[in-house]
């Protein structure tokens, strides 16, 4: 079997909860407990679970944004925390798309600055002119007019901002992208466009995608495989087809049963 692109081994994450009066000094809560996941190159993997189950924490750990208390995260076979010099080169290959596109774009930079700064940093564009050309090309790809380059984030609609977030991530031609709840709070029409775009880009660039969502219908439509998280533990994993056809764990079944389908007369409420 080929080497996985991203892999966790016994990943455990604790958050310091600070000093509390009742508990011991410097108490911490365990948010992930011994999580093993793997994401292969070019694969789209869903991570589902209810609020507080640890999805975002897992995603952040995959990018090295939160430290593991036990276990490790490997990127292309290298442990994340043992990357003293290659950090910048590695960074380029692990990108993220955020839930709140407004907050994830610097409010006082123009879209041009937002898109060109990272590729200049990584030497993907040699100079500002080349970076501008790359920005123009990517805007065209995500279906936005060139005029938006001169705008500030608040001058765009929510859906447009989300595309800028996607454009910024894919401009680095990363091998892995994490998308954390990027469609929650958006209209179905916007949602569908963003997801189709993302799927196409994954295929074009050959990047792997970890897609965090609490919407199982979306996961089913988008992902190859899925991990179900509950209380910081992976309770079920498998191909989407298999998991949705025959969920093994009661928690997975409950999650699937809780989705209202846009079909009348299912008796869903009574069940």
């Amino acid at each position, binding site marked *: 079997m080929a080497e996985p692109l991203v892999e966790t081994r016994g990943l455990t994450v604790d958050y310091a909860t600070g000093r509390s009066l009742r508990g011991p000094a410097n108490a911490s809560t365990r948010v992930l407990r011994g999580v093993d996941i793997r994401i292969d190159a070019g694969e789209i993997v869903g991570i589902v679970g*209810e609020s507080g189950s640890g999805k975002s924490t897992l995603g952040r750990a995959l990018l090295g944004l939160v430290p593991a208390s036990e276990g490790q995260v490997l990127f292309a076979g290298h442990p994340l925390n043992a990357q003293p010099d290659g950090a910048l080169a590695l960074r380029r290959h692990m990108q993220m798309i955020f839930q709140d596109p407004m907050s994830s774009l610097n409010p006082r930079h123009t879209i041009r600055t937002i898109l060109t700064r990272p590729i200049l940093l990584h030497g993907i564009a040699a100079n500002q002119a080349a970076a501008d050309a790359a920005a123009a090309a990517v805007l065209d790809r995500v279906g936005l007019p060139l005029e938006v380059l001169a705008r500030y984030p608040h001058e765009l609609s929510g859906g447009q901002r989300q595309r800028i977030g996607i454009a910024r991530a894919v401009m680095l031609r990363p091998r892995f992208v994490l998308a954390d709840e990027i469609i929650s709070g958006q209209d*179905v029409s916007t949602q569908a466009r963003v997801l189709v775009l993302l799927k196409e880009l994954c295929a074009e660039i050959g990047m792997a995608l970890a897609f965090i969502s609490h919407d199982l219908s979306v996961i089913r*439509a988008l992902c190859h495989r899925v991990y179900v998280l509950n209380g910081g533990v992976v309770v079920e994993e498998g191909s989407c087809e298999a998991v949705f056809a025959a969920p093994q764990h009661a928690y997975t079944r409950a999650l699937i049963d809780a989705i209202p389908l846009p079909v009348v007369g299912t008796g869903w409420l009574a069940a």
Partner: protein
Amino acid sequence: MSALLSIENLSAVSRRDGKPILRDVSLQVESGTIHGLVGESGAGKSTISKIVLGIVSGGVVVTAGRVMLDGNDLVQMPERDKRILIGSQLALIPQDPLTALNPGRRIGDQLTDSLRMWKGFNRKAAWVRALELLDHVAIRDPARVMEQFPHHLSGGMRQRVLIAAAFAIEPKLLIADEPTTALDATVQKQVLQLLKRLQAEHGTSVVFVTHDLGVVAQICDDVTLLFQGKVMEQGTAATIFNAPRHAYTRALLAASPRYDNPAAGLNPIDDAVVAACYAEIRQFDGVQHG
């Protein structure tokens, strides 16, 4: 069947720039039914529910139409009578269960307010009734919850408390503006089941605002689909979902993801459909002005 709430030819514009917010909206909520108000962001769903509740902001001006509740026109009615009518017969279940509750007051005190104000209960009787209500919305250990503050409760619990508060005055009409959007799917299902059960028991009419077509299909009897303040399609849930007539309805359904049939969902709406919707809107506006 008779309509409890009847909105007739309601139009509204923005005070700032005069842009239309509602365009000749008519809908009937039959008594004892759940009427879904659906549409994408900015369609005017919340504006309609706010006009019915008499809490629409000064930025929105109603330019035409009637809102008939049980034979009384809410738009024309004197402010005082309107307050009494709305206060005693209408209730709201808001979207955000955290901000809807006063963080500094005990649940019990907040629950008894409307009972004392509209039902003439004294403090003690109201407290007893509130305990019953909490029990009714399947909250365990209601006596303890009555003494607690909102931040002690989970999102689902808070929404149950708000539902209890809404049913406390036994309203004729309940307005639920995205009541489950902030909740986890499993909790959403429980809350919807609760809402449906109470609605059936009390024979309450409900205006259910949401953008989730799945929820609409499961809980609503009738549906009004809005786009930019204009009714695109209206009918029973069965006709809307089984035999949609408008291209926009069909496009929205095709865009909604569904786990049972992944190929049927997540199809982006065709630009031509959206363009046709806008053309319809422009034509309507043209007729209004011409």
